[in-house]
């Protein structure tokens, strides 16, 4: 920290501020505009979309259902209404294309808190972190699905910070800020990237979805990497970068295939050498051909 400037400084110098922050800015725009759309109803009386992230209805016709919440309800013995099932199909289809954990980095409101926590850690130079396995979240996911089976009640939603924060903003927060403060403090003082990267079962669910999803970050210009470590510094799931970035010798392709990658695009931003681009999971198969095809895709996005 003392030795090295903040990650992304070099990229800002070489690429300009906008280019070095484009995905971050787009991501914040996405997070706030989704919240904004839901708030238009209660605040301005414009009912473009009703509900919250658990289930919503857009323009009175388009249902969107959170598959994780509905799965919990089904485990509790519910037969959902057809609208809810259509909503699940649409949501699954969307995330199978854009990347499962795009939910985490582009939609989830708790991401704002955990990103702030990450920033706080960097500013206060907090290094210590309790080792919590990154696999804990899959155990948590299992737990959230077993509890409804045992108790007949959607237990996880009693405390789920993700749904609680979004619902809180749209319908009224109550004491939910205590849980959100807890998440922030947990991430700052207990475990680095603790909530999103290790514990959250919602992220784990979308991560499983993401391991099969189409759009991926590709280190297609990995030969240009100058080992500045900026991408590792900003990445909330560092372990996903290494195989794609440094795996050329072992014959590993340049696509970040891990479902844990949130497609936040911050690595693309902070890389002064433009090693990373958005591409598809099939970019591994024909490295050279894919490289040529992907450039226009990135520009269009």
């Amino acid at each position, binding site marked *: 920290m003392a030795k090295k400037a903040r990650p992304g400084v070099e990229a800002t110098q070489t690429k300009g501020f906008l280019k070095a922050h484009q995905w971050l800015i787009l991501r914040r725009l996405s997070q706030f505009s989704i919240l904004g759309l839901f708030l238009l109803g209660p605040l301005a009386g414009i009912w473009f979309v009703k509900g919250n992230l658990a289930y919503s209805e857009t323009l009175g016709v388009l249902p969107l259902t959170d598959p994780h919440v509905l799965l919990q309800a089904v485990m509790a013995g519910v037969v959902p209404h057809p609208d809810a099932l259509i909503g699940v199909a649409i949501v699954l289809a969307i995330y199978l294309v854009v990347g499962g954990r795009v939910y985490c980095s582009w939609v989830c409101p708790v991401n704002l808190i955990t990103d702030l926590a990450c920033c706080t850690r960097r500013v206060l130079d907090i290094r210590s972190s309790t080792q919590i396995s990154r696999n804990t979240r899959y155990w948590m996911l299992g*737990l959230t699905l077993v509890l409804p089976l045992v108790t007949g009640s959607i237990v996880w939603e009693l405390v789920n910070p993700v749904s609680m924060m979004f619902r809180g903003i749209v319908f009224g927060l109550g004491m939910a800020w205590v849980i959100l403060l807890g998440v922030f403090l947990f991430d700052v003082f207990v475990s680095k990237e603790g909530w999103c990267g290790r514990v959250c079962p919602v992220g784990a669910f979308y991560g499983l979805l993401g391991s099969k999803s189409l759009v991926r970050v590709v280190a297609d210009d990995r030969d240009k990497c100058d080992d500045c470590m900026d991408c590792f510094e900003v990445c909330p799931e560092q372990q996903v970068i290494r195989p794609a970035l440094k795996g050329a010798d072992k014959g590993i392709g340049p696509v970040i295939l891990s479902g844990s990658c949130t497609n936040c695009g911050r690595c693309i931003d902070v890389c002064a050498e433009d090693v990373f681009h958005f591409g598809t999971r099939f970019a591994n198969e024909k490295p050279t051909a894919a490289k040529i095809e992907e450039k226009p895709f990135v520009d269009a996005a």
Partner: protein
Amino acid sequence: MANSGKGKGKEVNRRQFMGNLLRTACGVGLMGMGLGMYSRQASSLPALAIRPPGALPEEEFLGACIRCGLCVRDCPYDILMLGQLGDEVVAGTPYFTARTGPCEMCEDIPCIPACPTNALDHDLTDINDSRMGLAVVVDQETCIAFLGLRCEVCFNVCPIRGEAITLNYQHNKRSGKHALFIPVVHSEACTGCGLCEKACILEAAAIKIFPAHLAKGELGKHYRIGWKEKEKAGKALVTPDIEHRYNLPEGVRYDLQGEGLIIESEDKGELPVSSNPLDTLNQGFGGE
């Protein structure tokens, strides 16, 4: 992890691996126990929070409601609210408070089709069949009908007027000459909408909506209500009482449960006995 080292290193890694696995499993397991117990505690609904029409029984409801709030949005009277963390109502689940905002009993029940999980039963199409709770006249000491005053506001605002709440006329013993107009709730018609509780003119309502399980008593299974059994069977199920025979003068009979003494003399002017009691008394002396 296991194949990164050789020999000794591998064993340590395996041990570490098992240790980590157990640590995670125990941590998550403990969390699950905590959550499970918290859910038990948190799932008791406070008496004055009423679920929307068509809501499943509370235990099933908590497994079915995904906390989306669409019923809240589709209620045209904005009476529904979502529980917030710190409220007594489970966070994210819909409820209304009868005293401040009762259910207006919309004919098309728009909150029900809004529900994506049947937590509000889509089979309920007639709002009069809904059972959100049950009105109870909880306080006979303050309800002014019991004090002898004419009120009948609850009776008059009731959307199922004359069926869910009726007025029972009773004698006012205090004044000795007036009637009491006592409101009586009938569970076979009351939907628990809460309009009566909202309308009650007292500072604190004397008629309140409670969840049915708090409001209703239950007869022992072995109880039989005689007159209902009689109606079902079409005849008395016990040996009828032997009719009592009164030794009365001719042309007079006695109706025990009706009019009392009935005099049926043929020519109405003359009684079988003289209206002058002295005649009867003197009979024994001069008659024969």
